[in-house]
């Protein structure tokens, strides 16, 4: 038998079994899927996309449509005829403007407070702590998320009550403090992730080129982690804007947009008006996201 020289093509022996029989339907299907990446992708995405389209966007659309209806003030039944009346009321009646602005103010305050608390915390976690401590700190930040929202809100109620640990009493400031506490992890985690991605060598390079701490922070750390802060703010801002439970528990007699919506669905039985009020935070969020998009923060979500 002659030994083939390297580089000489050798006819491959037919592999036994497998290729001789015609492939079964499952194998044919698998092979077809392998060839058509597009089909494969759409099959995988079909269910989640249907969920997103029907349940999420669909309900938003339904909300929007409902906002143009009204209720019969005598029977309380829905009247499905188009009217601008709800939006007209929302925009012209003083109290709704006040509530909307107050909600916006609370959301902005919560976001700023969280950013100020979260940044040093995230920086210590990402850049100063040993890997072991880092792990524990991440767990410590995450554990409050395992506890029920209500328990945490009532815990703050107890702390804030006039004979409680803090004793600030209830009201708008109490609401801001409670919401800041509740959403803090949502600010810490994106900033932590952003700082983790920031190579240590950039900080060293700044120091090497003569920059002291504050200057290095201002010229290198801040501009490179700003998108992460904005990403965190999307969470704290939107969660605060829609909240109505914390304010019920610690807000005293203060009202936010969420309460107006809640009261109109429940006590007032005016679903169309509630829907019109509920579009306010949606519009604010869309404006905010459009503004945020320019910073490139949405890529770091």
């Amino acid at each position, binding site marked *: 038998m002659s030994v083939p020289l390297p580089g000489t093509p050798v006819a491959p022996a037919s592999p036994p079994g497998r290729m001789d029989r015609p492939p079964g339907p499952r194998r044919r299907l698998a092979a077809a899927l392998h060839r058509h990446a597009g089909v494969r992708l759409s099959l995988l995405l079909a269910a989640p996309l249907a969920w997103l389209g029907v349940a999420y966007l669909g309900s938003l659309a339904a909300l929007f449509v409902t906002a143009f209806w009204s209720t019969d003030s005598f029977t309380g039944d829905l009247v499905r005829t188009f009217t601008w009346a709800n939006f007209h009321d929302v925009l012209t009646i003083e109290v709704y403007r006040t509530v909307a602005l107050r909600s916006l103010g609370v959301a902005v305050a919560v976001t700023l407070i969280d950013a100020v608390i979260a940044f040093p915390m995230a920086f210590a976690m990402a850049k100063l702590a040993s890997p072991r401590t880092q792990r524990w700190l991440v767990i410590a930040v995450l554990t409050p998320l395992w506890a029920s929202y209500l328990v945490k809100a009532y815990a703050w109620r107890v702390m804030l009550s006039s004979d409680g640990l803090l004793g600030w009493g209830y009201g708008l400031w109490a609401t801001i403090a409670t919401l800041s506490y509740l959403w803090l992890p949502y600010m810490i985690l994106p900033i932590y992730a952003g700082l983790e991605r920031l190579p240590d060598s950039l900080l060293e*390079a700044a120091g090497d080129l*003569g920059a002291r701490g504050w200057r290095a922070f201002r010229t290198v750390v801040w501009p490179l982690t700003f998108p992460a802060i904005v990403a965190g703010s999307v969470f704290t801002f939107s969660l605060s804007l829609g909240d109505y439970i914390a304010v019920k528990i610690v807000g005293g007699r203060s009202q936010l947009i969420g309460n107006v919506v809640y009261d109109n669905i429940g006590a007032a039985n005016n679903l169309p008006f509630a829907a019109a009020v509920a579009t306010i935070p949606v519009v604010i969020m869309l404006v905010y996201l459009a503004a945020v998009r320019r910073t490139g923060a949405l890529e770091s979500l």
Partner: protein
Amino acid sequence: MFFSMPDQSVAVRLRGLRKSFGPVEAVAGVDLEIADGEFFAMLGPSGSGKTTVLRMIAGFESPTAGSVELGGRDVTRLAPFERDVNTVFQDYALFPHMSVLDNVEYGLRVKKVGRAERRERATAALRSVRLEGFERRGPAQLSGGQRQRVALARALVNRPRVLLLDEPLGALDLKLREEMQVELKELQREVGITFLFVTHDQEEALTMSDRIAVFDRGRIEQVGTPAEVYERPSTPFVAGFVGTSNLISGEAAKAVLGRDGTFSVRPEKLRLALDADAPVGADEHGAIGTVAEVVYAGAATRFVVDLDAGGRLMVLQQNRDVSSMEVTELRGARVRLVWNRRHEFAIVP
């Protein structure tokens, strides 16, 4: 080698430098003097402590014991921004949100150098690394070699006493690396600044530097010129790490050299005689063996020869008159290796 230099000509002086990370001693007592204007290499395998020494000179790590002097001034406890050194980082560490020009001007801006002078010096620095016209680009729009040059310009523009380079060519491909070796050397001669660079590539250290310190397990094994380190390795580690070790020891040393101990001969100093009875000159040594392996490498061929007296030696021969067909046929041939006695060196185990 340990004559003490006068202070003003010493760029870097390390005394009893140690660094432990928990139970691990990364640097276990390093003494070193680097003269002004030297191109100095710290060579060693990964984990040998060379990078940690560099980082302690830069100020990124503080030593567990010992001292760091720059130009005769003790800087052991000073922060990086208080030291007259600049670093070219292994990953270049260019600020991604700044243009090339802003990167290069960063150090000058921090030191409050006026706008006009800043621009002028930055432009000159970019010119010296042949990057004119790239001022407005972002680091992401540059190739690896170009980033490397920006990092160089950004450090050199500050005119530091010492420039520290951490594996400066490690991330570049072979062709570019060879080009940059020559360029770095030229640049250093031009600016006259002391260059201290860390590398694990022995060829890089041999080609670029005035002197080399070979590191192993947190200690310096040998300091010397490339020729000294290569021709006269003082320990088996240096012999093995810088070049191919080619050691003759034990019974083989007694049989071939008539002496006890461990000796090193570099592969290119050996002559391969195809006749096992080839004559050996008065100032030469010879050993008979069998060719075990032939590795054809284009310009040269490496032969692995098993000595009859025990042990094996690597021989490097230029392919002056032969082609691959001929040399590969030598596998199994009986040969005599001949070398001049002045090329064999005793090694302290």
